[in-house]
């Protein structure tokens, strides 16, 4: 925390581009151009936790997913999991559980494909310093048309699965308290099976692409925005990666277990949130370690670090190759998020393949219920990391309390650490700040795939504005991409 800002220059990256939502980065520079403070600010305010109060609980899975246009399914399912417990229906019928899992793996596939191919690949394939006019998805389409098509079609496959299970590609209604409102028809299943082999081939190629890229550029990437941290995710009872359901596990930067097999209904006994006055995003931390040391990372890298194994063969082989190449668990390299993300993409495709051959998807027993509860927590592993939905519902069926901790919030301190690290290494002390240097800060943020507001924005528009502001607040230099 800088006490006095007089005499310091402020560099602002606003908005941060090729991420979901709206955020900005501010850097404070002294007269020697040294970075004395670097922060990622979330400048949007959403208010969902307040304005769903008083609403009937059964509409919440459909309402809260409006937080986001990219991962609405994650919010839809997390809220539905909480509402399952409210209606006493947390032990879903096999059909309901499998339809929801299919929806979720479709979501993981489409979101990971979007993030990698559309948002991050331009930095990786063209280089951090490449001309921003080329360093975008349009550039990828021009220079690597086959890859661009794979990215688009991988995403489409995931979106079509979401449509078949939720009714719409964005903001569907498939998950209802205690179950689902439809199964998967044989015609829908056969349509997906027809395309499956091609999708699986492309998914495997995506892992190879990120693995090759990481190893070729390891000298630069190993320390790029890297720092030791704890890692948290859900895991299955047997230690396997499970993106839909499990218990909480958190390990420290050396792999030592901090919490393990914690029932997420009790998350408040282990996790608290700190509020800071310069951002709308809270800072969660593990109670046992306190706000200074208790922060952690979530998302693909955290999941691959916390799980003992992955229960699908291609993804498990890729996970082993990952650690064979990068060293022992856990890996603390920020830029390894991309490789981990593509391992999960393969895992999601393998899971989709398993489910499509399961006749339970055509079952007709869709909804269940049991003794009513007044409070419940729903958790799952969203594409960007662990997503918490916590609700209280009164005896008249109205929501009285809602607490949402989204993946990007868990990663708040981690992203700020990455920004500080990159700013210190690449910008501090440099007399001239180029667009490429500033882009490195965005590259570090993009590795986490943040969903800053959970809102989409136009592709290829790159509306970056960088301002140099002197200590009196005058804009002395401004660069804008258009």
């Amino acid at each position, binding site marked *: 925390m800088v006490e006095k800002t007089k005499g310091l220059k402020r560099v602002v990256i606003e908005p941060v581009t090729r991420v979901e939502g709206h955020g900005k980065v501010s850097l404070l520079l002294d007269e020697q151009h040294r970075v004395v403070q670097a922060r990622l600010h979330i400048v949007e305010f959403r208010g969902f936790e307040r304005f769903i109060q008083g609403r009937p609980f059964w509409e919440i899975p*459909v309402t809260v997913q409006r937080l986001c246009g990219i991962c609405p399914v994650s919010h839809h399912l997390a809220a539905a999991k909480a509402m399952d417990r409210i209606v006493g229906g947390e032990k879903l019928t096999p059909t309901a559980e499998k339809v929801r899992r299919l929806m979720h793996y479709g979501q993981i596939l489409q979101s990971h494909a979007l993030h990698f191919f559309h948002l991050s690949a331009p930095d990786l394939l063209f280089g951090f310093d490449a001309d921003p006019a080329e360093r975008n998805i349009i550039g990828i389409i021009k220079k690597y048309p086959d890859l661009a098509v794979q990215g688009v079609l991988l995403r489409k496959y995931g979106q079509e699965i979401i449509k078949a299970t939720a009714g719409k590609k964005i903001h569907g209604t498939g998950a209802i*308290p205690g179950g689902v409102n439809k199964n998967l028809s044989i015609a829908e299943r056969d349509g997906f099976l027809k395309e499956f082999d091609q999708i699986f081939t492309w998914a495997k190629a995506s892992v190879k692409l990120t693995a090759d890229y990481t190893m070729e550029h390891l000298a630069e990437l190993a320390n790029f925005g890297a720092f030791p941290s704890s890692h948290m995710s859900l895991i299955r009872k047997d230690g396997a990666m499970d993106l839909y359901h499990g218990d909480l596990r958190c390990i420290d930067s050396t792999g030592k277990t901090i919490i393990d097999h914690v029932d997420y209904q009790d998350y408040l006994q282990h996790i608290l949130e700190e509020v800071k006055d310069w951002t709308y995003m809270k800072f969660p931390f593990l109670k046992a370690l306190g706000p200074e040391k208790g922060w952690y990372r979530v998302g693909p890298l955290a999941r691959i670090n916390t799980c003992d194994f992955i229960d699908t063969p291609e993804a498990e082989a890729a996970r082993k190759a990952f650690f064979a190449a990068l060293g022992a668990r856990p890996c603390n390299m920020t830029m390894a998020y991309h490789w981990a993300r593509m391992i999960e993409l393969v895992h999601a495709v393998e899971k989709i393949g398993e489910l499509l051959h399961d006749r339970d998807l055509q079952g007709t027993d869709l*909804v269940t219920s049991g003794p009513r509860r007044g409070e419940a927590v729903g958790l799952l592993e969203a594409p960007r990391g662990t997503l918490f939905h916590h609700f209280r519902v009164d005896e008249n069926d109205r929501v009285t309390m809602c607490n949402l901790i989204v993946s990007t919030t868990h990663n708040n301190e981690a992203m700020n650490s990455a920004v500080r690290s990159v700013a210190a290494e690449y910008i501090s002390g440099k007399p001239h700040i180029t667009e490429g240097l500033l882009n490195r800060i965005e590259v570090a943020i993009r590795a986490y795939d943040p969903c800053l507001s959970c809102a989409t924005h136009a592709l290829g528009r790159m509306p970056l504005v960088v301002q140099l502001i002197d200590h009196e607040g005058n804009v002395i230099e401004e660069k804008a991409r258009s």
Partner: protein
Amino acid sequence: MSDKTITFTIDEVEVKARPGQTIMEAADEAAIYIPRLCSLKGLSPFGACRVCTVLVNGRPQSSCTQPAAPGIVVENASERLHDIRQDIVEMLFVEGNHFCMFCEKSGNCELQAMGYRLGMMEPKYPRLWPRRELDASHPDIFIDRDRCILCARCIRASREQDGKHILGFLGRGPHKRVTPDSSDGLVQTDAAVADAAVAACPVGSLMRKRVGFGIPIGQRKYDHRPIGSDIESGAEVPDERK
């Protein structure tokens, strides 16, 4: 038809009616659709919403209350009436708090379906954002007044079909609202989930609890056909509750 048959025209098409029939009833039997929201088969005419406005010999009349008369010239499917109806529907949208995107009635809602049928885009009028109370006191049904369009279908169905006098209007102008005959809410009335009043609501206002989004997208009433298409196809005059 008997000697007492009334003959008149709607948009220059000859239509026959029995004495006592409204213009709308005669039009329905002739497979001519006149848009409507507050009218429901089996309930007494009310004339609240004015969406069914037609021009009778050049004068605006609500076709759900106006009796058919010999020789009248009725204008229905004209551009100017379309514009008037669209304006009325837009006013209904801005007067309440209608969020179709996460309303459980979406796809089965007559107001939404009417908006689509009339080609409504963003309302041209400023939204009023009224503050309205939700009554969830009853164990099986609730009133979400945000979505109420004051059509009185629930009030009429409750009195005329359920034989109960438990719902009515309270207040005037922008403060007018449906209210149960109890200061403690619906729970203190003998309202029941099977009441005709519940089924009569055209929007998501008087609703069964815990139904929510049970019907998947693609199987909802208006997912594949616009409101009024069953009348135009010559099918039996629909009861929108079914």
